[in-house]
């Protein structure tokens, strides 16, 4: 404790110095943050600039594992270098993007938005932060599937994003199990049998359940929620009306999907898993043969293969669904506050053009949302070695083109979560009655939604 005055003073100075350093450091870094991430300003075509692309999961653009589109763009425009800021978790990505948008800081030059959040992004408070593609030269909404650009259109007609991939859904089914249960196994016969009516799909499920020769312990469908999502995705009215107002309690589409899914649950046709659950119970159930069908969007085909493993090779097949719907897909949006809005907009358009979407598809399998790309032989003729002879590209490209657009709203994601997790899954797990499950879901939606 006994220190001489001088050393004590030195200590105080040191502490003060440290504190000053600390403020300097934080000051510096915050300056950096406020600064646009790009290294220089101005937009003459020869100036060297860096464009940042913020996205989540894997978009298939990068130079290492993707289609190397960034390197290609750099070759076309030597003055532009592209850096990708990828976050693996989509929900986390959206939460921080939402914060960045409100603060108008930390934004990348291009930001990807998943279709599940586009309904929120087109609300006036967020939509005003993005470039309106309607005002951009060379943009034509008809280049994409009709529903795609409609999803990114605000109520006053602005288009805040350009479409990357799409998620047309189909039915993945276990041929082996169908054969044992005495059902047809040919994908065209099945598709023709249930074409246009999900009820026929459920009726087939009842046949499967009644069959004495069907594999023991195997249910017809993996989950009531998956079924609900697929049926709802195929309906022209979903949770919201054209103005974005919630109409889930009167919507014919929700009614249809609810009735189909709950009938399947009540008849014991579903195995009660949650698709893509974090505990991987659903993924593990592929190997233990707990279900014979999965309603699968194009991007889930890869999961069916990896989850089933080598033992399942050749057992699974894909058939066109009773009615097509869309599940998944993303958009690229350009925040207005960026320093290189013009260059960023050009890059976003280039990345989502037909030629580029085909390249990503070939390398990564993401189904294009550009109509021209969907017609390309490279997409049409795709086959997946795990599903021999299945014309994967044709099935999904056809499905993508037949999707009827439906209005979406800001609360769709929340309502979907509640109906599937607290309604349908509750019926499957706890044997709650259909009416009680619906009233529970409605009660919770009313607690959640503030309109």
């Amino acid at each position, binding site marked *: 404790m006994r220190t001489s005055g001088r050393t*004590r*003073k030195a200590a105080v100075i040191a*502490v003060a110095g440290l504190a000053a350093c600390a403020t300097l450091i934080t000051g510096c870094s915050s300056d950096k943050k406020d600064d646009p991430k790009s290294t220089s300003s101005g937009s003459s075509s020869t100036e060297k600039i860096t464009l940042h692309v913020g996205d989540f999961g894997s978009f298939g653009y990068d130079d290492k594992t993707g289609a190397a589109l960034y390197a290609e763009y750099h070759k076309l425009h030597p003055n532009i270098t592209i850096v990708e800021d990828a976050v693996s978790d989509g929900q986390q990505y959206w939460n921080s993007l*939402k914060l960045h948008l409100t603060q108008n800081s930390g934004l990348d030059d291009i930001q990807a938005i998943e279709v599940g959040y586009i309904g929120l992004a087109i609300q006036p408070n967020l939509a005003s932060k993005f470039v309106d593609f309607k005002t951009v030269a060379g943009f034509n909404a008809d280049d994409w599937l009709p529903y795609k650009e409609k999803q990114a259109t605000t109520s006053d007609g602005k288009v805040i994003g350009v479409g990357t991939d799409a998620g047309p859904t189909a039915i993945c089914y276990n041929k082996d199990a169908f054969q044992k249960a005495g059902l047809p196994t040919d994908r065209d016969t099945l598709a023709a049998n249930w074409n246009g009516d999900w009820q026929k799909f459920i009726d087939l499920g009842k046949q499967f359940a009644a069959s004495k020769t069907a594999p023991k312990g195997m249910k017809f469908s993996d989950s009531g929620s998956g079924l609900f999502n697929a049926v709802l995705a195929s309906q022209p009215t979903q949770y919201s009306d054209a103005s974005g107002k919630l109409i889930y309690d009167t919507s014919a589409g929700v009614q249809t999907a609810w009735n189909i899914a709950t009938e399947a649950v009540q008849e014991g046709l579903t195995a009660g898993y*949650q698709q893509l659950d*974090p505990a991987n119970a659903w993924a593990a159930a592929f190997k233990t043969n707990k279900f014979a069908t999965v309603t699968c969007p194009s991007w889930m085909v890869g999961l069916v293969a990896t989850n089933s493993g080598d033992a399942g090779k050749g057992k699974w097949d894909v058939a066109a669904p009773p009615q097509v719907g869309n599940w998944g897909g993303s958009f690229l949006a350009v925040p207005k506050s960026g320093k290189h809005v013009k260059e960023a907009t050009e890059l976003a358009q280039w990345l989502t053009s037909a030629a580029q979407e085909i390249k990503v598809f070939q390398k990564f399998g993401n189904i294009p949302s550009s109509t021209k790309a969907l017609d390309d032989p490279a997409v049409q003729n795709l086959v997946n070695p795990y599903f021999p002879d299945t014309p994967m590209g044709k099935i999904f490209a056809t499905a993508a083109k037949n999707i009827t657009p439906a209005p979406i709203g800001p609360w769709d994601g929340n309502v979907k979560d509640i109906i599937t*997790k607290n309604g349908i899954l509750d019926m499957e797990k706890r044997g709650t009655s259909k009416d009680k499950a619906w009233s529970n879901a409605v009660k919770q939606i009313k*607690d*959640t939604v*503030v309109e």
Partner: protein
Amino acid sequence: MATSVRATSDGSPPSSRPAPSTSDQRGSRPPGWRTRLYRFDTKASPYAYVAPFFILFAAFGLFPLIYTGWLSLHQVELGSHAKWVGFDNYTGLWDNEFFWKALRNTFTLGVLSTVPQLLMALGLAHLLNYKLRGRGFFRVAVLAPYATSVAAATLVFIQMFNPDYGMINQLFGHLGFGHVDWESSKWPAQIAISTIVTWRWTGYNALIYLAAMQAVPADLYEAAALDGASRWRQFVNVTIPSIRPTILFTIIVSTIGATQLFGEPLMFGGGVGVTGGTDHQYQTLSLYMYDKGWNVGELGQASAVAWVMLLILLLIGAVNLLIARSNRRKLGA
């Protein structure tokens, strides 16, 4: 500390009072200036030393607390401006069945996890207090679960409690009990979650008890033994009363922990963790708050839940204080 500081300042040669007269005569400014610096130093340095904590506390404790209070009186969504709603968020909670359900769950989960945990910790500490071979090893071993992360522990327990292939249901099968659906039924799920909490915290509390037990004078036990008290009687009549303040401390700490229970039920529920199961059967207040804040984006309502949780904790703290005070009076008498 205070006295020693005063001693140095008094001891420093010419104190400031006689200074003016001397400086008038000799015009020696430096000593006076130095003295003042010394005085300033001795007075101000302690504040400088404690400042980091209080600055950090103000930034990460006090400010969020007040800001949350402000938010709770508004309707706020991320990305839009706050709208003053007065106490609507609070009155809304009063009428909200999900809030009451979460409160009930927090209470039952708290009892289910805290009571067995502290009782087991007491017993464990008592055993560890004996002269055992490899005592050091056991003492470190009981602390190991505490060092495990919530996520890791919960993931392992999820596997064990899996209704289809989990170890616990297999064991139950061998013992002839029925199949238990650990995830979807209310009480089994709450027991499973409490098990995770109990497993993680028992050893920690046991070590705190052990430390307190070792401070109990040995003569008390000797006297009790001379009076013919058995081990059990010694435990009940000597050990427990002697470590009563420590027990009270662990009760407070575990109650606070139980009120904030979050990670275990969230992860245990997996895809339905945020709502605490499909029927909210194990949604705690923290989960409800998280659901409101991040899942739904209603920061005002979430802040109101946070403040209600704070009030509940203050209430519990007050009750504990009263008990402690009467306890002290009893000991004093």
